[in-house]
């Protein structure tokens, strides 16, 4: 496990794209799990790479399915709540966050699945996570870290160990404040 001494900043730029501009294997993979649901496609540029993301709502759950630009699956994220994480794991996460941040509030929780196409498909369709799936929790915190007041993205593994912390670069909101 490695925790950065200084939270790295996370820059992202995203834009809507048409399904026709998405690699066929990405479309095929999403449609194999979500046949009737409306899928929104986005391109996402970060400092490291360009990815493609499918966002959709199905059965009351919000899914984000991320691919590399060739259409290879990277991960699936499902919107959840911190209170839904099992007690032992959430306690481990809390202990770590208490040490890392002066104060914090979890404002968004996503469960992240990584694995082969077939294991990911089984995890989504059966609601039972195969052992081969690499599961993480991605949290967004409204927090104070090293006197910095901001949102932070924290990635934890399935046992609650913190894998990384990124400071989220906030969009300018001066036009909404003044």
């Amino acid at each position, binding site marked *: 496990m490695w925790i950065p001494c200084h939270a790295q900043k996370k820059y*992202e*730029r*995203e*834009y*809507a794209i048409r399904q026709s501009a998405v690699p066929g294997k990405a479309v095929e993979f999403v449609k194999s799990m979500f046949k009737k649901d409306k899928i929104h496609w*986005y391109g996402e540029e970060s400092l490291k790479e360009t990815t493609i993301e499918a966002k959709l709502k199905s059965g009351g759950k*919000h899914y984000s399915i991320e691919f590399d630009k060739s259409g290879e699956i990277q991960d699936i994220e499902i919107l959840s709540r911190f209170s839904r994480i099992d007690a032992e794991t959430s306690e481990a996460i809390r202990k770590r966050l208490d040490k890392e941040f002066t104060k914090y*509030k979890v404002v968004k929780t996503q469960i992240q699945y990584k694995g082969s196409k077939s294991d990911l498909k089984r995890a989504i369709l059966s609601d039972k996570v195969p052992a081969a799936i690499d599961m993480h929790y991605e949290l967004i915190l*409204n*927090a*104070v870290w090293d*006197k*910095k*007041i*901001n*949102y932070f993205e924290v990635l934890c593994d399935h046992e609650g160990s913190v894998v990384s912390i990124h400071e989220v670069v*906030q*969009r*300018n*909101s*001066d*036009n*909404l*404040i*003044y």
Partner: protein
Amino acid sequence: MYKSFLAVFLLIFAPAAVFSQAVYRAGTLPQFNLNIRISDNLKLNNKLESRQIFSEREEEQQTRNRFRYERADLTMVLTRKLSAANTLGGGYLIRLEEGRFAHRLIQQFNNVTNHEYARIAHRIVTDETFRRDSSVQVRLRYRIGFEKALNGINIDPKEFYAKLNNEYLGIYEDKSADLEIRALLALGYNATDNNRIEMGFEYRVNEFNKSVQSQQYWLAVSWFISI
């Protein structure tokens, strides 16, 4: 998105059709904001705003369609971050109107939250306005604002966005209370994250304590620079 933009526009500004009988003012409302980052958690907003009237009608008077420079405001508000979503601020405004100055003290609280497809902002303001030979005017204001990217989820550089504001102002002056309601629908362009321009239409209605309400129709242009 464009269809909903048009529908909201018509809903808000259709009352303009009744210009002929109402007490109203119509004109332009340009605004320039220079926001200076003082430290990680402190920001100073300097705002220069003016109003130019092109058409107006006062109670029991004829409509006047001529240019009139109504007033200019210079505002400075210092805000401090309380959390990633909340800020607290205080400031001062000086207004020049018909050769006379007015002074205003401002206290404000803001909450801005990011949602899946939009940003929502709440602003609560109290202010006190002082004019020579007039009672102090005290106002309590609440504004809700929505901002939505027209392409994708976030408003990135070189992208257009839609903005909708709705504000309610309780006004107390000289033992009399009034209400003002404002609505703004604007199209914005985010040139960079520190340079934005917005253009839209703002409708205001007040003087609910009189038999005929006063209405205002503004073409609003706002420029926001952050350094």
